[in-house]
């Protein structure tokens, strides 16, 4: 069981959280302006890296807040967590931590 650092509540056990997939994929302001390919890309295509990955998490059984985390998908280590709307301090395009 992992420990996850909720930006509001501090370190809590994994069972209180749920993961919401890749972070920083903003819903387009005007979806009707996207062609079918671009919309399908937005809906279905995710990066799925081996290494650092920015993810959405929600402290479902805690403060209920959504936030973001950078996690290494290979080691399962959380590198950092930060509030929704903020940017990670780690460059997430790089490979492994």
């Amino acid at each position: 069981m992992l420990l996850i650092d909720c930006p509001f509540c501090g370190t809590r056990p994994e069972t209180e959280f749920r993961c919401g997939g890749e972070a920083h994929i903003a819903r387009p302001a005007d979806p009707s302006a996207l062609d079918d390919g671009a919309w399908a890309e937005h809906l279905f295509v995710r990066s799925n890296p081996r290494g650092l990955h920015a993810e959405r998490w929600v402290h479902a059984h805690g403060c209920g807040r959504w936030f973001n985390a950078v996690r290494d998908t290979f080691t399962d280590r959380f590198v950092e967590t930060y509030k929704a709307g903020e940017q990670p301090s780690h460059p997430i395009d790089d490979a492994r931590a």
Partner: protein
Amino acid sequence: MLDRSLFARRDRPLGAAPTSNDRARVSPAPAGVRLSLRVRGAEGLSRLGLGLAINRMSAEGERFSARLGPNEWLLGAGEADLEALEAEIEAALGDRFHSVVDVSHRNVGLEISGPDAAAALNAGCPLDLGDAAFPAGSATRTLLGKAEIVLLRPTAEPLYRVECWRSFAPYVHAFLVEAARTA
């Protein structure tokens, strides 16, 4: 006018009998008022516990205020206190955007107390309930076994208040009774 004999009375989901145990005692809490208060940007306000840090609570008599998140408070009061509490909220927040929802019947309270109370809670609650990590005045939403609860520690006494949703109350109660027995 409806015959008063037909007036409905509150019917709580748990019996009132406490389960005694030398080391951990579990007892259903009486019915009361619970309001879910949501407000953003309450920094600087102090009434109603609005100045509390996240996961902290204050209590006085039957009144309590627990800050469960950045913009969420659980307010508690005695049954007769609803209107006064609502008036105080209006006075404190005025035109500031906020939401008050009555959840008095949604929430059911239990108390667990005694030297093994924390150990019994830890049968299903994964949090560190030690005095340093969860001191007097702590309050948080968390898990107890397979149920979500709000866990409140009003004082330094080994007395914890567990609030859960109504239909989870029999499970939470039975879980705590079993946990108190085997702690």
